[in-house]
């Protein structure tokens, strides 16, 4: 039967599995050396296999969140469905060194996301191209400054920081220790947001943005 892969973890961590994952299927681990992969059977042909994908994705996240409280995990992108255990073992064997190093580097960490959205600059409606570009530049600088305020607010706890542009602003990810999440969220509440802007702070998430070192 096909397998749905949830995440990788270090085999040294003793994980207590949630009773059931996606489609109500029991979770189990597939181990290869020091790597452990959490999987469940994945039904594609029965009524269970017709679970709406949105519900399945939310169930997948609930399972990851449960595991995240117990261990450092590197998630698989949903839905990663493999033909059988042999195919998974082949992957684990081939990439063992890479993911063991990643999990060791990220041990004990989680990710918090900060999505900063700003309205388009007022000059965007003006005729002058120069003014438009200046407005864009000022908006971008302001976005960066707001993101920097969150980074400064959490400087005690943030181990790494990444940000990237989105259609409406910036998306920032902070890597911090699992036990530091509440302190970071409390500090984030104190950041002043410009009028008409929107900021959303979410997490903890698995530290997927930090899987690669740079």
């Amino acid at each position, binding site marked *: 039967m096909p397998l749905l*892969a949830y995440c990788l973890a270090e085999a040294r961590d003793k994980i207590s599995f949630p009773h059931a994952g996606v489609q109500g299927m029991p979770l189990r681990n597939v181990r290869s050396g020091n790597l452990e992969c959490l999987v469940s059977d994945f039904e594609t042909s029965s009524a269970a296999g017709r679970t709406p994908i949105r519900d399945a*994705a*939310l169930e997948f996240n609930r399972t990851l969140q449960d595991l995240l409280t117990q261990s450092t995990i590197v998630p698989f*992108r*949903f839905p990663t469905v493999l033909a059988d255990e042999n195919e998974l073992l082949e992957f684990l064997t081939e990439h063992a060194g890479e993911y063991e190093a990643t999990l060791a580097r990220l041990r004990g960490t989680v990710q918090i996301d900060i999505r900063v959205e700003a309205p388009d600059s007022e000059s965007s409606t003006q005729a002058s191209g120069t003014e438009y570009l200046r407005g864009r530049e000022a908006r971008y600088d302001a976005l960066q400054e707001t993101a920097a305020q969150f980074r400064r607010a959490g400087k005690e706890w943030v181990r790494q920081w990444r940000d990237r542009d989105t259609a409406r602003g910036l998306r920032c990810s902070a890597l911090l220790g699992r036990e530091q999440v509440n302190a970071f969220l409390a500090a984030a509440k104190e950041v002043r947001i410009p009028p008409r802007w*929107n900021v959303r702070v979410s997490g903890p*998430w*698995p530290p*997927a943005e930090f*899987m690669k070192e740079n």
Partner: protein
Amino acid sequence: MPESSDNLVIAGNDFTDEASVLDVLDHVLNAGVVIRGSLVISLAGVDLVYVGLDVILTSIETAMRYLHIQPVRARISLPKSEKPSD
């Protein structure tokens, strides 16, 4: 419920409101290890929160039907310039 002031929402990991559901879908569909040959949702780095999630979910459901025929060989690729959804 997520805590919020006028324009700052501290959602944490409370996934009860619609915006949080979008956050979740964005993370699970757009981040993590990809195994070559498995079902891949390729959006060239586009933030899924700004893409029509219904389009994506429908695409995945279509691809999952192909899994029934041929496991682990389905691939979805959406264009870079998907229109943002509001």
